[in-house]
């Protein structure tokens, strides 16, 4: 199968002016300007198959958004080859732009002063969507995101979450085959995040769209992405299934223990992470989990005991920490 997205040895470097603080340095920089090369993306390669939903993870400044911008044709790469749906994104052909969408959680494209229903009409004209198809898609999306009572209100009168839902509808009306989602749930409450996740999932399943998603909310990634690509300082640290990431980078399990006597010291069983009344959370080496569990149950009177994998946020954190230590 031909991949939908193929990235080979992609680099994007920026030359940024640099000077020390203060008046003297400012004056010197007028005559002798110094530049530093920032490697926003440095030699990354990956490919994504049709219909895949891939999480693109990394801390701030890792190069996620830069990569998305190169893939969507906004930025020209410094080197490397990029192909999406058989197109070279930097050529920005209209045929290509008609088949992709970039949704950025902190950017708006709908008219602030008008009801979304009017802005949707403009999206129809921009993408040349046939009227019957436009109406069907629009009404489907409005139903899916429960927006019926809101589409006639000016965008400025909507809450952040409601606005984001409208933005997503506007961005997907032309039914793009590839979605680049950059923090689509940023700043939204938990309920709204869940709705948007469910919608993206539904869109992916219904239209077979390929999705590349960046998010700092691991709940987004866990709910949507089987595969993740982790990047840091512009380089790929991991590319594979989320479950493999957890196995590979998490050597601990989390034990939740509820005791009738909250005063008992559990430090001999593992690292005490939290203590909330009678409930204690312990971090235990994965290899010792069975032994520790058995010991706890035989040594103490235990009301409740749970064994969980390390939260995905912590796993990702440990990937970055490990990378920093290796450097």
């Amino acid at each position, binding site marked *: 199968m031909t991949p939908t997205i193929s990235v080979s040895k992609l680099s994007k470097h920026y030359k940024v002016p640099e000077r020390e603080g203060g008046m003297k340095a400012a004056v010197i920089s007028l005559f002798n300007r110094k530049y530093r090369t920032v490697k926003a993306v440095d030699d990354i390669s990956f490919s994504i198959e049709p219909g895949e939903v891939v999480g693109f993870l990394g801390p701030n400044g890792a190069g996620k958004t830069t990569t998305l911008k190169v893939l969507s*044709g906004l930025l020209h790469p410094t080197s490397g080859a990029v192909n999406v749906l058989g197109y070279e994104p930097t050529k920005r052909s209209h045929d290509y732009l008609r088949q992709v969408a970039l949704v950025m959680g902190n950017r708006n494209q709908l008219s602030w002063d008008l009801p979304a229903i009017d802005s949707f009409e403009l999206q129809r004209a921009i993408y040349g969507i046939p009227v019957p198809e436009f109406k069907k898609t629009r009404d489907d999306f409005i139903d899916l995101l429960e927006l019926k009572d809101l589409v006639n209100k000016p965008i400025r009168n909507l809450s952040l979450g409601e606005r984001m839902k409208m933005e997503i509808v506007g961005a997907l009306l032309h039914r793009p085959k590839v979605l680049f989602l950059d923090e689509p749930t940023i700043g939204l409450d938990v309920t709204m995040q869940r709705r948007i996740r469910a919608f993206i999932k539904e869109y992916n399943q219904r239209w077979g769209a390929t999705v590349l998603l960046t998010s700092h909310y691991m709940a987004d990634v866990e709910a949507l992405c089987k595969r993740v690509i982790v990047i840091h300082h512009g380089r790929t640290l991991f590319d594979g299934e989320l479950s493999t990431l957890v196995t590979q980078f998490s050597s601990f399990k989390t034990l939740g223990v509820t005791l009738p006597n909250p005063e008992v010291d559990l430090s001999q069983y593992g690292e005490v992470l939290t203590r909330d009344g009678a409930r204690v959370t312990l971090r235990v080496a994965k290899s010792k989990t069975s032994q520790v569990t058995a010991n706890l149950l035989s040594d103490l009177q235990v009301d409740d005991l749970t064994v969980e994998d390390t939260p995905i946020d912590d796993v990702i954190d440990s990937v970055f920490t490990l990378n920093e230590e290796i450097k």
Partner: protein
Amino acid sequence: MRRYIDFYLASMKIAILSQIQYSVANYFYMIGMVTEPVIYLVVWTTIAKQQGGMAGGYTAGAFAAYYIIWTLVRNMNIVFTPYGWEWRIREGQLSMELMRPIHPIHGDVAYFAGWKTVVIFLWLPLAAILSWIFKPDFDIRWMEVIVFSLAIWGAYLIRTILLSLLGMITFWTTRVSAIFDLYFGLELILSGRLVPMTLMPTWVQNLSNYLPFKWTFFFPIEALVGNMTDTQLWSGVGMQVLWITSGTLFLNLIWKSAIKQYSAVGG
């Protein structure tokens, strides 16, 4: 082509709907804009009266006609500014526009064209009031009305192209207000905005013939209130077409280079 017409109509509709939301603010904005030509008008009318009723070939009534039409032409000259380009690059808004399968400048032209249609309607009562106060000399032929109707849109397109070219400097550097100010200073003198071009020294008039500015301001006004022959009128439209064509070609050339520079700094 059909898709572009559809896009233009939809964008213009959005612009009209947006402007209707702020119709009162729009009206006050237009009233505010009348201040500038009224000052020019009072000054030149006074000079004309002191010089026996005429200055530089213009009577007080001719000055009134010039500056009343000036108010509409000035509004037609309002386009997406270089400061707007600076803003949309800095704020990342351009990234969203670049994701559309249509050139962002089409979006600007269409949106502002929609706004102009609102402006023309708002201008009519304002022009009536100014005419009642300043008693302009209007001696207008049908051919002049036809050419004027075309020329104001020609002026709109030329100025859009010029200011877009200027705005595109922000692809290379995002703080270029000083260059913009220099441009606007030149335009003020060489376009006929400050005074009718015929009142300028001959060398300024000659220079203006080789520059696009007078085709955005002086020509449309003179087409309606001046005494141009049909040949002069249509030659003027021809010059506008020439500037629009060459400007569009140049714009495309610069755009191809500018877009490679785009660093999406604002998002």
